[in-house]
């Protein structure tokens, strides 16, 4: 039996995802029509014999209860939300709820960061880890000692040397895939192989975390606090666990060439949306709107487009590629939408154009308006390039051109242009804006 833990963080996290995370917890932000972590749940459900999914974080339970109920019904699997009383660090939370994870004695468990998007190769990771565990058990060494049993396999992918320094970097043994060295966000280049934030762990990992925990407790009581970490129980998965495990023969990398990306900034939502829609094309074509040339009854659809069954799209509208239309959203006559996400209840009026934008729930766009952002996709000419999570402002203090975002219930009047701007919730705009954050 297997389990999975999805680390979803809490309200203090995901601030770079504002203003989209102001009214909806970031893990529930819909990408390609599904809440972000539903993609994780769906990947977990495709692993044979996976019996329970634990969501771990410190959002108030009320924010997640409906989602958990819906997911349980939809996937017929045991899903639970475990709430940390405070941020315990990614590994600290796992340790705090170790008994819940260990109960039923699962063979192995997955750990997935909630803020990554990927074509998760979970079953392949499982097979790889399992084979290594078995090899370690059966293969007694000549001198009678045993090889250490693997505790963790880390999903890894290649990045450009420049970009790798923004991630956890893994140096692996080219033949055995053993992690020889691990460093988090180095200031000089170490390795292009980066940690994807997706792991498969043996239960033995808890002993390792326990010893880290004990050491931290001891330091705390003997030396009066520790530097940087919030609280004596906080354990960071990467720095506190993976770094010491590297070179012990207990941690392995599972390199993948599947699509993978972080979802840190709101700008990356459009990129993630496009890739999840593309995955649907392969795995769940039923979730895509049938492409059509547009006739009296159906709108013209170009490429991958998801339209919620309760949304209304006028037959003269043209959608796509890479558009997701949320629950109850309304797309008026002659509207053109490309590379964008409309959240629940968003309304775009006649003849308007929406490009590279996210329209928050209940937001409205008048007639003949132009809502346009600038894509910040990875450089397609650079192999292994990842999404640049550029800061909001450049070194001159000016707003970096990014996708345009309307917070919830924002209204955009008719005939204006909104270019590369971010509008905070409930704002009623009265004119055009370019390259501005509108409070």
């Amino acid at each position, binding site marked *: 039996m297997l389990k999975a833990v999805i680390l979803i963080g809490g309200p203090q996290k995901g601030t770079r995802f504002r203003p989209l995370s102001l009214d909806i917890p970031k893990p529930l932000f819909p990408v390609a029509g599904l809440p972000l972590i539903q993609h994780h749940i769906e990947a977990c459900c495709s692993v044979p014999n996976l019996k329970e999914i634990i969501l771990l974080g410190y959002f108030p339970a009320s924010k997640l209860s409906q989602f958990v109920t819906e997911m349980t019904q939809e996937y017929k699997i045991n899903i639970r939300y475990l709430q940390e009383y405070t941020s315990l660090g990614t590994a600290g939370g796992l340790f705090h709820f170790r008994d819940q994870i260990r109960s039923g004695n699962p063979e192995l468990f997955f750990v997935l960061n909630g803020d990554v998007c990927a074509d998760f190769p979970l079953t392949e990771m499982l097979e790889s880890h399992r084979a290594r565990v078995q090899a370690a058990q059966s293969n007694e060494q000549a001198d009678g000692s045993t090889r250490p049993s693997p505790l963790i396999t880390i999903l890894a992918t290649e990045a450009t040397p420049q970009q790798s320094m923004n991630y956890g970097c893994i140096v692996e043994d080219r033949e055995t895939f053993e992690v020889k060295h691990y460093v988090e966000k180095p200031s000089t280049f170490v390795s292009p192989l980066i940690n994807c934030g997706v792991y498969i762990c043996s239960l033995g990992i808890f002993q390792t975390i326990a010893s880290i925990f004990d050491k931290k407790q001891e330091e705390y009581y003997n030396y009066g606090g520790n530097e940087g970490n919030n609280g004596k129980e906080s354990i960071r998965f990467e720095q506190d666990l993976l770094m010491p495990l590297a070179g012990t023969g207990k941690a392995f990398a599972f390199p993948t060439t599947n699509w993978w990306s972080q979802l840190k900034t709101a700008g990356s939502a459009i990129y993630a949306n496009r890739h999840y829609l593309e995955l649907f094309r392969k795995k769940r074509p039923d979730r895509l709107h049938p492409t059509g040339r547009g006739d009296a009854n159906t709108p013209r659809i170009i490429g991958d487009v998801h339209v919620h069954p309760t949304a209304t799209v006028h037959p003269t509208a043209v959608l796509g590629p890479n558009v997701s239309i949320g629950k109850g959203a309304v797309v008026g*006559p*002659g509207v*053109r939408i*490309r590379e964008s996400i409309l959240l629940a209840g968003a309304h775009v009026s*006649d*003849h308007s*154009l929406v*490009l590279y934008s996210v329209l928050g729930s209940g937001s409205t766009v008048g*007639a*003949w308006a*132009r809502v*346009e952002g600038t894509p910040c996709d990875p450089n397609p000419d650079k192999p292994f390039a990842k999404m640049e999570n550029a800061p909001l402002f450049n070194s001159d203090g000016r707003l970096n051109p990014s996708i345009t975002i309307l917070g919830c219930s924002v209204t955009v009047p008719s*005939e204006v*242009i909104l*270019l590369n701007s971010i509008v905070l919730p409930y704002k009623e705009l009265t004119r055009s804006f*370019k390259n501005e954050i509108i409070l």
Partner: protein
Amino acid sequence: MPVVNEGGNKTSGMKALILVGGYGTRLRPLTLSRPKPLVEFANKPMLMHQVEALVEAGVTTVILAVSYRAQQMEEELSKEAKKLGVNLIYSCEREPLGTAGPLALAKEHLVGSNENEDEPFFVLNSDIICDFPFKEMMAFHKKHAGEGTICVTKVEEPSKYGVVVYDSDTGRVREFIEKPREFVSNRINAGMYVLSPKILNRIPLRPTSIEKEVFPGVAADGALFAIELPPGGFWMDVGQPKDFLTGMCMYLGHLRQKEPSKLYSGAGVIGNVLVHPSAKIGEDCRIGPNVTLGPEVVVENGVRISRCTILRGARVRSHSWLEGSIVGWGSSVGQWVRLEGAAVLGEDVIVGDELYINGGQVLPHKNISSSVPEPTIIM
């Protein structure tokens, strides 16, 4: 001196000289395809607005002081001139002669025959659009019997024009200051004069400025008089795109007062809109206020246009939004395009779908395939 005489030698009646001048660079890229006087303002070549008003006032000979492309103008204007029964004379400068030099060059045409050699004549800058008060100007000129009459108009920002200080009772001009740095008066030179042949003695045949070199002297001699445009009228120098559009708004407003039947009143139209009978407007459009659609223009469904001039044969494709811009002859604006900020598309420009064009000038025969969010010149 290359002078072309058009349609016989009628020398009775009044005369006028229009300073057509040079390349019309301020109205590029339109003037790269057609000489400025032929660019259609409210569906009529700019020059014809003036010629018609002059004919209306009794002018029978119009001298066009030109420095280039006289032939293209001749070809296009001769038919119109014949229809109006006006004698058009082209006086071509070899080198630019400024605003006064062309008068010296065309002296023989202006002074005319013996019996009426003291007959005053009109001189106009070619960029002026207004409700031309030619009859009033001539009557005023004959009454004061000075050397020159300047038509003046009141403006809010006088510093970029020639400012006229004059006696409000007699109209006698005390001072004529070109582009003053400090405020002296809000009455400016409207670019329309009545001059007596005597003034020609002050003008040498070389590049000379009438505003800087001739009028100050006439004013000093007490022989220059000013007449104000009637209040409530309109006046605009339409030599550059922004002013061209402002002038069009004024002109259409004037049409509303004088000849409302000339304005379009079909479905989907707001305010003053001039539509050529051969232009087509699609369904679900909102056109106006202040729009001119030229001959054979096609506006597809769901288009919004305000404060624009769309010239002959241009097409605006569905769901686009155009404001405060000029679309050149035969150009095509794609679907879901936003065009604004006094953008000027030259002749035969193609703007791709879903683009944003904010201001700037696009030279003729360009194909635009990416947005232009800040005003630039597209070569």
